[in-house]
């Protein structure tokens, strides 16, 4: 049984070793300075350029876009669930959020491409078939249940005595929620944001299907872009021989992805532990 538990350490080390090993091989061909400063990413065709910035920018666009959608709605749902909802409403909303969280990401990709994009085209006619906006929207829907349920847990951990104290001083429900309960659960709420964003960084299928495959530095959300994850999928769909530089790029990009999500997850844990509000 100990060995089974030990497996988790082996897997962690395995991931790090595999990523580091091939990424080091990659950086023997391509300097790390070029990787982080070149603004072009054309790894498959001559003349080759290995600048990861366009992919990073693509991921960043998706993360920001999904945060704009997912975080406000998620927090609002959490406040509704913990402060306003009747037991019956809770009994409906909670399972709905669970189902939303359980829908496979490939389904969200389909939804983005065949439903959200045509909708966006009505609003902004210049929208590309593949665009960052519709991918961001569905990734936002995807992280919404996570934000909602984690924030709900955090809000419900705030003891009722604090609420009752605030009401006794004449506060309205709005003031109780925003000045007492939310500050009282802040560490949990912020941690849920960080975890949700880390999930958005690692999101793969929806952005592969809906955001496109053109790595470029752009701020226009209606253009086609490419994220780090979508690039990795694109390469592995093709037939790239092991050991080639193209093959190694997926490990270099994967290593960067792993570092970003790991840093985010550690940060979330840190926030939870350092700033936890302790109630008796």
């Amino acid at each position: 049984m100990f060995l089974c538990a030990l497996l988790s350490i082996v897997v962690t080390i395995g991931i790090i070793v595999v990523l580091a090993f091939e990424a080091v091989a990659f950086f023997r061909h391509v300097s790390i300075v070029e990787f982080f400063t070149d603004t072009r990413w054309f790894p498959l065709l001559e003349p080759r350029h290995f600048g990861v910035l366009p992919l990073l920018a693509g991921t960043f666009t998706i993360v920001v876009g999904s945060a704009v959608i997912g975080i406000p709605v998620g927090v609002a749902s959490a406040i509704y669930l913990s402060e306003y909802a009747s037991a019956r409403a809770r009994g409906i909303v909670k399972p709905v959020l669970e189902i939303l969280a359980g829908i496979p990401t490939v389904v969200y990709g389909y939804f983005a491409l065949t439903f959200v994009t045509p909708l966006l085209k009505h609003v902004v006619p210049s929208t590309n078939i593949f665009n960052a906006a519709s991918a961001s929207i569905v990734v936002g829907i995807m992280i919404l249940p996570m934000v909602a349920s984690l924030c709900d847990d955090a809000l419900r951990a705030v003891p009722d005595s604090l609420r009752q104290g605030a009401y006794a001083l004449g506060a309205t429900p709005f003031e109780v929620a925003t000045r007492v309960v939310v500050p009282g659960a802040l560490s949990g709420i912020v941690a849920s944001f960080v975890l949700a964003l880390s999930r958005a960084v690692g999101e793969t299928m929806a952005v592969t299907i809906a955001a496109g495959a053109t790595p470029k530095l752009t701020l226009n959300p209606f253009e086609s872009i490419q994220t780090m994850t979508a690039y990795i999928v694109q390469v592995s769909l093709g037939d790239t021989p092991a050991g080639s530089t193209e093959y190694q790029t997926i490990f270099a990009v994967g290593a960067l992805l792993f570092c970003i999500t790991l840093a985010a997850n550690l940060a979330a844990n840190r926030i939870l532990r350092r700033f936890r509000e302790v109630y008796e």
Partner: protein
Amino acid sequence: MSRLLAAPANLRRRHRAARAFRAICTVLTWFCLVLLAVLLVHATREGLPWLDLQFLSEFPSRFPERAGIKSALYGTLWLIGFTALFSIPIGVSAAIYLEEYAGRSRINTAIEVSIANLAGVPSIVYGILGLAVFVRWMALGRSVLAGAMTMSLLILPVIIIASREALRAVPNSIRYAAYALGATKWQTVRHHVLPSALSGILTGTILALSRAIGETAPLIMIGALTYVAFVPSGPMDQFTALPIQIFNWVSRPQQDFHELAAAGIVVLLVVLLLMNAVAVFIRHRSQRYRL
């Protein structure tokens, strides 16, 4: 002018703000319900005309009207079968070790930390790991086995975390009672703790497996094929899976294939809903019969 006289107008404003805030939160929450409904209705409306027995029993094809998901269904079945075979024993044993046996030592802390971190690693990174270790290094090729092993690693943290919660919910009085009757540690775990935690473990495991059914990215990484016109006959065969088939159809430009993808999605969602229903049923039943 005293502050008291100014209060009513101020109070009215504050209550207006409170009502508006409540309305906003309520509307945004129920908006999630609408979203889910729109998503389901959209997929069903697009896919339903294609959904018939032929769709379930045909292999994929270049011609939309003849295409089906037979190989994908079988592939998913093989994949999940092997994933369950690997991940459940390992995950549950790890949970039992961590909850019942592990003391406070440095290695146990390291295990806890790595499980927590692994739960947050993006699924595509597991795919990269599977590609490098199972497909290339262990030379399993693009087989069902390599896919199942990758999937197992992916859902192990989920199973371990859920099983630990179930084990933790077993009251200590049960353990003490067993010890008082002279049971050994293992007898206590085997005959008392594990049966009490079983429903929780089952629920968590089913949910973890349903996550594995929907995962696409790691399978693409390890090279599950997108066009397979045969049914796998053993763990070393190549395969495709339901989400891969859906992805393949979605990425084609023709409208017909998008509708086929919708039909595939309906099948996938029905399978997932059934699994969730089973999980909910088990949880519900165990709550009713709990002493």
